């Protein structure tokens, strides 16, 4: 058995497809488990509402559709995506501009299109295409040109999102740029110069949105303004404390239901901590690490194609980064920013976009246009 597991993680060549197929299966099973975990957590965080199954039921529907999206997008050869990266980028970029003009404003952020009873968030769908575009640019350029073009593309994608304003997603886009540039062999000195390049933008957006500075001051001293800028920080801490080691149990998450801001999306991890306690929420970190490690193995073992390797690893790491950002905010390692816990938080756009990204990852991991798989 051990030998088989070892073989699974260590041996693979282009003619022996089994190991990769099993790794792909692991990824899909983990995503399904996370999705179901999320549905349960959404139910727990809305259990005091008059319709406790409303969000959880819808999320289950998104999960089902998301799995289908992942399946179908993984069937399309990766070369199709990479060859059409620019066309796909234009298709994904235009809604980012359009949403600023005709989008719906929710919680002070103009980031959604209203389609019937549903809301579509284009910045979520933009993430995967953005990574694809960066990989495409990086593979066709070299040296300073690579850095310059990639940075230009990144700034172009981040600007409309910052104007919504959705700074959580801007951070994810920024991380996407850094990850792709780093994995493609980017120079450290350019990366270290980035904070200086970003400084004027940071100053401009802080002046335009003074709440950013308030959030930071609230984070540094939550007791200075406990009902204002320190409110969210304190609520996260109280919620986790109430959960303790073993949790209050699903359906007894009083604090999550009553005090946490957006408990079924931006405060999901703290909500899970109250319901399931330390022993129910800490394993999520482990599952994230296992998932990223499997993606790492896939990226290492995939054939000698730079774009595929980098895209696989970058997709996994971007998922991990958003996960880390959400958890960091929820355990008060970082000042509050609105960002969902991928796969687990409520939201059709987030679920579809993440599943689409993993679909492309699985497509990049396979070589089905060259090898006949035995399944």
């Amino acid at each position, binding site marked *: 058995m051990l030998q088989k597991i070892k073989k699974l993680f260590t041996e693979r060549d282009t003619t022996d497809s089994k190991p990769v197929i099993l790794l792909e299966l692991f990824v899909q099973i983990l995503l399904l488990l996370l999705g179901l975990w999320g549905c349960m957590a959404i139910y727990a965080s809305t259990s*005091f*509402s*008059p*319709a406790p199954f409303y969000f959880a039921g819808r999320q289950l529907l998104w999960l089902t559709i998301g799995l289908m999206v992942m399946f179908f997008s993984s069937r399309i050869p990766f070369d199709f995506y990479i060859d059409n990266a620019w066309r796909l980028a234009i298709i994904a970029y235009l809604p980012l501009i359009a949403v600023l003009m005709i989008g719906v404003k929710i919680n002070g952020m103009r980031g959604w299109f209203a389609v019937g009873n549903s809301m579509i968030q284009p910045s979520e769908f933009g993430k995967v295409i953005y990574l694809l575009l960066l990989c495409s640019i990086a593979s066709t350029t070299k040296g300073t040109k690579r850095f310059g073009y990639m940075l230009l593309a990144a700034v172009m994608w981040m600007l409309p999102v910052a104007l919504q304003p959705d700074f959580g997603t801007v951070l994810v886009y920024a991380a996407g740029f850094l*990850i792709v540039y*780093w*994995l493609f*062999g980017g120079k450290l000195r350019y990366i270290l110069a980035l904070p200086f390049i970003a400084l004027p933008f940071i100053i401009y957006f802080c002046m335009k949105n003074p709440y950013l500075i308030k959030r930071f001051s609230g984070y540094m001293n939550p007791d200075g303004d*406990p009902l204002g800028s320190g409110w969210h920080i*304190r609520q996260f*801490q*109280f919620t*986790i*404390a*109430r*959960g*303790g*080691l073993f949790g209050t149990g699903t359906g007894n998450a*009083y*604090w999550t*239901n*009553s*005090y946490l801001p957006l408990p079924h999306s931006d405060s999901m991890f703290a909500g899970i*901590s109250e319901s399931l*306690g*330390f022993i129910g*929420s*800490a394993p999520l*970190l*482990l599952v*994230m*690490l296992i998932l*990223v*490690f499997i993606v*790492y193995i896939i*990226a*290492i073992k995939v054939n*000698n194609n*730079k774009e595929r*390797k*980098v895209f696989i*690893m970058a997709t996994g*790491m971007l998922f*991990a980064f958003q996960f*880390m950002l959400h*958890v*960091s905010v929820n*355990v*008060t*390692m970082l000042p509050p920013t609105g960002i969902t816990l991928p796969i687990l938080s409520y939201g059709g756009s987030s679920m579809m976009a993440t599943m689409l990204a993993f679909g492309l990852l699985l497509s990049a991991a396979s070589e089905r246009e060259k090898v006949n798989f035995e399944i």
Partner: protein
Amino acid sequence: MVAKKEFNAMFKKRATLLIAGAVVWALIAANYLFYFSYFNRTKYIDSGSKMAMRKGYYSAGRGRILDENGVPLAWSERFFDLLLLKAPELPKFQKMLDAKLRHIFPDIKSCSSIPSYTVIYYNIPPNKIAGLERTIHEFPDLKIIPRTERVVVDYPEIKKIIGKVKMSDSLLRGISGIELQFDETLTGKVGTYTVMLDRHKNFINGTWHLEKKAQAGEDIILSSSCAELKDAGRKP
């Protein structure tokens, strides 16, 4: 081929660094989680409770005033009113609230024309209170507020003798007439409870705990009949 090998080696090294970073982060995050859920848990629970737990007072009801034949002359009644703290800002939500309220109270005014802190419906019938629960959850600025009123028989002469009451510390206290004279007997003793409030200051279901039971005020029986009291009230 050499370039590819070099790239693969570089990629592996850099990807491993990213994974190592994720592992280090996970350890730090788990440490934070453990700190709040175990090490310093009591401190945060106490702070949270201080913010959310409230001690409240309630009365079991003021006693009745009866005439010598046992006819009630004054008694307390509890009513429930619908208060709107603030109308929704967006017209879309205003329309939604109007539609939901008109489903229960067909002749209610549109919330867009109502100023803040206004009682929009007095004396909600008990059968309609349950129907409002969902709307109140969706629109937290809508609240059901209880109101206790002292009702006296509709004879001005008797009203003069019975006197008046006013609300003080959650209790109706007599301020004139018989209500004042027998205030201690009629008032009873106030009870206390603790409850957890949500961020909109509403009670959270399942968190209400009785601390001290209230003691109802006693009825008092007057030595005169209703007719005699009317006669007495007519005298200057």
